[in-house]
């Protein structure tokens, strides 16, 4: 009997192809947008997580807030203090530095290119670990020796030197209002995904130099970057570091502030999560609209087929038989729309991901929930028309013109 009803429903959907398709469209749009939006959110969350996973999970920035807004040496850090902190933490800090950065123009002959130049301290690869394609990365000797070396991006090398392999060439720039001539010792390739470049707004290529050539050793700096050993309990370690800083600088622990990558990650994750939930919920409203479309067309169908209902009832169809026939029809339209919408939604995310060069995340649970929800919408909104059909009086229905 159920099988017969499914056949009847399919027959009726095929008999009104255009109408069925238009009715499905609501579900198709609803489901595909829910899947696309939720998957987009999941993709971004996994990218954020991946970004921190590979590099910099233990990175944090500490600074001292001045209550009255006046900053003196009490609030600033010297290189010695940074080293003292590193030593005090029994090797659980892998990097400590001021990591100054500045937007500068580099000049080679008549060619000029703007880059974001960053100064790195000892153990530079703990802070920045670029993919070197020519030459080498800065090392501790370069940094301690205040060598005027620079590591540049391949795109920068190409535009100022006309070739990617620029190792051994020199370029001119101005750092801290002071003219410098730097020797290129390495060229790296930017491995960020297109989406990440977009998000970081990184219009400028990066370049790395020893921190020591960007700042004077005796000049105290506001705030310092440190990398924590990721195998440690980082929350505990961070607290230990902050209280050490407070003691060292004779400050209240409350005025020592800290932004850590981990906290940032969880807050970005939280924002993205609630953002995709909210937008997903808005998209889900379109499912309800789609459901109303199904209810509407089913009501039309029931009215149109009043006579058929009368005939079926006269020939022995029970209330339940008629009800199931129309319910299955509504659920089939809705589920078909759900399946098409799912395929469309995944395709949209997939093609979008391919264009931006990002591996997309489509959770099976999201797909399952979307399809189940669409069938439920069909059943829910099909219920009223189906009941209306089933409760028709056969005598009246047979007489319907």
């Amino acid at each position, binding site marked *: 009997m159920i099988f017969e009803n499914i056949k009847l429903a399919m027959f009726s959907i095929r008999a009104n192809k255009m109408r069925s398709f238009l009715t499905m469209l609501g579900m198709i749009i609803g489901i595909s947008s829910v899947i696309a939006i939720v998957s987009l959110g999941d993709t971004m969350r996994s990218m954020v997580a991946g970004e921190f996973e590979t590099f910099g999970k233990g990175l944090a920035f500490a600074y001292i807030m001045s209550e009255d807004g006046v900053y003196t040496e009490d609030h600033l850090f010297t290189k010695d203090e940074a080293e003292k902190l590193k030593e005090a933490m029994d090797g659980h800090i892998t990097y400590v530095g001021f990591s100054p950065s500045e937007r500068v123009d580099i000049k080679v002959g008549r060619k000029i290119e703007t880059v974001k130049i960053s100064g790195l301290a000892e153990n530079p690869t703990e802070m920045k670990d670029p993919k070197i394609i020519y030459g080498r990365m800065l090392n501790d000797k370069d940094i301690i020796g205040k060598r005027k070396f620079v590591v540049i991006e391949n795109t920068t090398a190409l535009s100022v030197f006309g070739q990617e392999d620029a190792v051994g060439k020199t370029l001119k720039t101005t750092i801290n209002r002071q003219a410098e001539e730097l020797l290129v010792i390495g060229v790296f390739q930017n491995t960020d995904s297109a989406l990440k470049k977009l998000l970081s707004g990184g219009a400028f290529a990066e370049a790395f130099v020893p921190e020591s050539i960007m700042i004077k050793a005796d000049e105290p700096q506001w705030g310092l970057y440190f990398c924590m050993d990721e195998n440690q309990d980082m929350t505990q370690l961070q607290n230990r570091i902050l209280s050490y800083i407070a003691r060292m600088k004779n400050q209240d622990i409350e005025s020592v502030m800290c932004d850590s990558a981990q906290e940032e990650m969880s807050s970005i994750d939280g924002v993205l999560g609630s953002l995709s939930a909210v937008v997903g919920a808005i998209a889900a409203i379109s499912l309800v609209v789609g459901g109303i479309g199904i209810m509407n067309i089913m009501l039309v169908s029931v009215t149109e087929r009043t006579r058929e209902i009368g005939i*079926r009832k006269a020939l*022995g*169809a029970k209330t339940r038989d008629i009800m199931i026939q129309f319910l299955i029809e509504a659920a089939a339209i809705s589920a078909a729309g759900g399946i098409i919408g799912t395929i469309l939604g995944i395709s949209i995310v997939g093609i979008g991901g391919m264009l931006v060069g990002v591996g997309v995340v489509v959770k099976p649970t999201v797909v399952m929930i979307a399809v189940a929800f669409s069938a439920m919408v069909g059943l829910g909104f099909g219920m009223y028309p189906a009941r209306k059909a089933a409760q028709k009086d*056969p005598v009246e229905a047979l007489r319907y013109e």
Partner: protein
Amino acid sequence: MKEIIKIEELNKIYDTGAIQVHALRDVSLSISEGEYVAIMGQSGSGKSTLMNILGCMDRHFEGTYLLDGISIVEQGEDDLSGIRNKKIGFVFQAFQLIPRTSALKNVEIPMVYGGMKADDRKAKATSLLEKVGLGERVHHLPNELSGGQKQRVAIARALANDPALILADEPTGNLDTRSSHEIMDFFTKLNEEGATVVVVTHEEDIAQCTKRIIRFQDGQLVSDEKVVKEG
């Protein structure tokens, strides 16, 4: 002879709120197995109301109605569906075939609701269509058939579940004279094979094809007589 229809003191009142219409008044009649009966009357005589009650589509009446020994007034909605399915074969004036559905599928409908298996259903529907002379047109859609052919499909459908009663409501009302005779000949043949046939009509010559005529006027049974065949 077994009584297929037994009605006693049947009253039907349509209550429209403002006025009450007494559609059937103290009707008592009995039809036995193998009879061939015409129920006659002008429009408004109550014959359509009686037809709906006889067809178990209306159980809101006073009095008793036993169909093949089953008291109809005591049945629920779905029980009546089952009774219509098993006991009654309907033939309607407007054919009442389901559009865009082949003759075969139309004949199968009562068997679908009777729970018969797909293969058995198809075999029986095919043989019934052959019986009414439409063996060549099993896959035709209703709109590809003439009026007479449509009514023959309807007769095949009425026979699907071997009903105790064939109930025809103005079966020739939408047909030309030639097709009308063809259809009445079918009923005659079915009756000769032992079927109980009740034809509701307002046409005298159609009624004359049967063996017994029950006449209604203003909701009351006014005459019940055997048809005397000439020659």
